[in-house]
């Protein structure tokens, strides 16, 4: 295999696939990128056996078709360091790959390309291959809408919870409605979008690992570009571009097994205190009050007064000090209340709200609070117990 590549395009692709490769693994092949040169283009693939990614790089000159399995880490460092070169040549034969620019040459030991596990393509999952069932649901959605769904839920997913299912994001399709839900047990984010122009009323739900969705955010390009999605019994695949069979990138992932907790039950329906805020004013107030909180006292106290439409935020860090911030409310309906929240949980949600006006609904100081923006985003957060 021999290809001459545009260094910028190569670097971008290598950075993306490196995010997939396994770092600590007994199988060194999983730490490699597979390069395949054929039909005038270079295809790069990586997998950690859970998540797989395939990228097509157009700006290449294929001198000799073939495959190579190159350690991702070193390839990324070399391509990154050769920053004076407009192009790099990769020449692989036998168990060596030579990467050369004008004044430098790197020889890397490689692995036989046949040792690399198959990285699924879109149709293998959508139509079923190797004895697997065809996908339970297949649809296309514009990248802008899908990216918003992911960005507005993924942040709330658990990191390493023993309740394994919440370490991923729940994705439910019901006809034209697509919904994503994430929770870490203390807060929950739910966002919905509609699948324009999609036919069929099939419904399917699955839990997508956070790692796959973080990658998806990195891969998403133009808002209008379609993302084709197929969900099978145990895998999900995303193909970026108009034609799913001929897309610029294919991201696949095993699904998270397990049952997502009954999230509809924890979204409160009878909140009788309703407060309207300016998003940026609230975000700034919470950030400032959070300056005097610490591990000991994670909460910011929010004291709402309906009569004069004011909110006072206060915080206290033992042996450090205390803070007070006053906020004017845009609207207030209900009794006065004092309630504590982890400030990061409030600012996390405000960051992903596009609407300048935010509605907070409360009930009691030991009951969850609800944030709403538009009719597509709901965020539930448990209060912090303040003595």
């Amino acid at each position, binding site marked *: 295999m021999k290809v001459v590549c545009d260094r910028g395009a190569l670097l971008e692709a290598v950075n993306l696939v490196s995010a997939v490769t396994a770092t600590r693994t007994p199988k060194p092949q999983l730490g490699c990128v597979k390069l395949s040169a054929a039909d005038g283009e270079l295809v790069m693939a990586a997998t950690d056996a859970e998540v797989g990614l395939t990228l097509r790089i157009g700006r290449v000159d294929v001198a000799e078709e073939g495959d190579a399995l190159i350690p991702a880490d070193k390839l990324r460092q070399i391509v990154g360091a050769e920053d004076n070169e407009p192009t790099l040549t990769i020449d692989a034969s036998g168990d060596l790959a030579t990467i050369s620019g004008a004044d430098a040459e790197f020889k890397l030991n490689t692995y036989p390309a046949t040792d690399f596990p198959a990285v699924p393509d879109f149709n293998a999952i959508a139509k079923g291959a190797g004895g697997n069932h065809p996908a339970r649901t297949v649809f296309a959605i514009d990248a802008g809408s899908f990216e918003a769904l992911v960005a507005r839920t993924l942040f709330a997913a658990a990191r390493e*919870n023993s309740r394994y299912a919440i370490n991923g994001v729940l994705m439910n399709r019901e006809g034209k409605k697509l919904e994503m839900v994430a929770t870490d*047990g203390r807060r929950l984010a739910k966002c919905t979008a509609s699948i324009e122009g999609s036919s069929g009323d099939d419904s399917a739900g699955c839990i997508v690992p956070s790692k796959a969705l973080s990658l998806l955010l990195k891969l998403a390009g133009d808002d209008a570009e379609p993302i084709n999605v197929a969900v099978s019994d145990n895998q999900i695949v995303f193909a970026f571009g108009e034609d799913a069979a001929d897309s610029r990138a294919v991201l696949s992932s095993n699904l998270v097994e397990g049952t997502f907790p009954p999230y509809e039950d924890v979204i409160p329906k009878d909140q009788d205190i309703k407060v309207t805020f300016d998003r940026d004013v609230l975000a700034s107030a919470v950030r400032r009050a959070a300056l005097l909180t610490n591990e000991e*006292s994670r909460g910011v106290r929010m004291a709402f007064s309906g009569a004069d439409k004011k909110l006072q935020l206060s915080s206290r860090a033992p042996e450090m000090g205390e803070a007070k911030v006053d906020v004017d409310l845009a609207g207030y309906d209900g009794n006065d209340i004092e309630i504590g929240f982890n400030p990061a949980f409030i600012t996390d949600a405000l960051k992903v709200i596009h609407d300048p006006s935010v509605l907070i609904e409360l009930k009691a100081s030991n009951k*969850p609070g609800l944030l709403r923006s538009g009719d597509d985003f709901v965020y539930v957060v448990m209060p912090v117990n303040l003595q």
Partner: protein
Amino acid sequence: MTDARTILHVDMDAFFASVEQLDRPELRGKPVLVGGTGPRGVVAAASYEARVFGCHSAMPTAVARRLCPHAVVVKGSFHRYKELSARVFEILESFSPRVQPVSIDEAFVDVTGSAALYGDGRTIAARIRERVKADTGLTCSVGVAPNKYLAKLASDMDKPDGLVALEGGTYQQVLDPLPVSRVWGVGPAAERSLARLGVRTIGDLRAVPAGSLNARFGDFGDHLWRLARGIDDRPVRTDRDSKTISHEQTFAQNLAEPDEVRAVLSAQAEQVARRLRRAGRFARTVTVKIRFGDFETVTRSRTLDDATDRTDLIAAAARGLFDVWAESFRSVRLIGAGVSHLTESRGQGSLFDRESDDQRRSLDAATDAIAERFGTDAVRRAVSLRAPGRHGAHGPGSHTPTEERS
């Protein structure tokens, strides 16, 4: 701790029984037993009128009734005890922030720093007794001394309604004639061992050279040597300002079965959780310490998602840590459970399982109430620091442990 301290030991007089007599005037002057009335009921408190007949706490109610047939037995009202106890602790805290609760009706107070404001130890003790009497109608006995051990001895010397100050230079005369059983940590077994050395009083004990005590009793011998001289450096420590809460036990005979260790560990987790709740705090980290028969010691910790004071969560974490080691089980000489990373607030509640959390908390509240009411043994254990157990720890087949709180 070289600077002279002033420590008070405040002990309510026959607390539960006195509260009953306070609230029910018809019981005043009569023998009253507070405790279980069923066939297996135990006396939680006996009024002084009943003590005359030999009734005392931790005695089966049936036995106490035989000793004092005309005694009035009442079930007791824990809420009322708790309410009055809280008022007493408020009074103590108004004289010094350094209050260490020992139980619902007993506390140490370090008033070393309060002299400028409120006077010397004896004056503060007198004022505390007045305030308690005025605010609650109850009496207490207070001991004043340079350390906790002497203060506790002193409070017991003129009970009920007494005030005894043991001051530097004079206390040795008071200590010497006392039986060795009054030494903190000396139970029946140690008492017998000492009797074999001809040691019956604290004065006798003081005459035994340090080397002999150490040779006979090891570390406990050093402890005896110090206490015979009224030396005790333990600070008055509130659970509030301690950074960790733990219980550990060393067994007179190594435990050979993992399940025996699990049982002890679970009891320790419960005690630790109860102390957390009493201090109004929550812990993020649970630690288990295991010393094997060959003296290899391992300490393992787990940090929880959320700070908790729930017995079941702390016990489950402790057990999980132990189970990792139970796979290659060897006999265990010491086991301990502890918590650290203490916080003032419970932190974030969980969106899910809220009902079961509420249920668990009310269960904990109920067991706390029972333990406070009948937990006289727990109160005793607090003073058996580094001491052999009270029930023949040196005898064969005994698992009665040495227990340590910190």
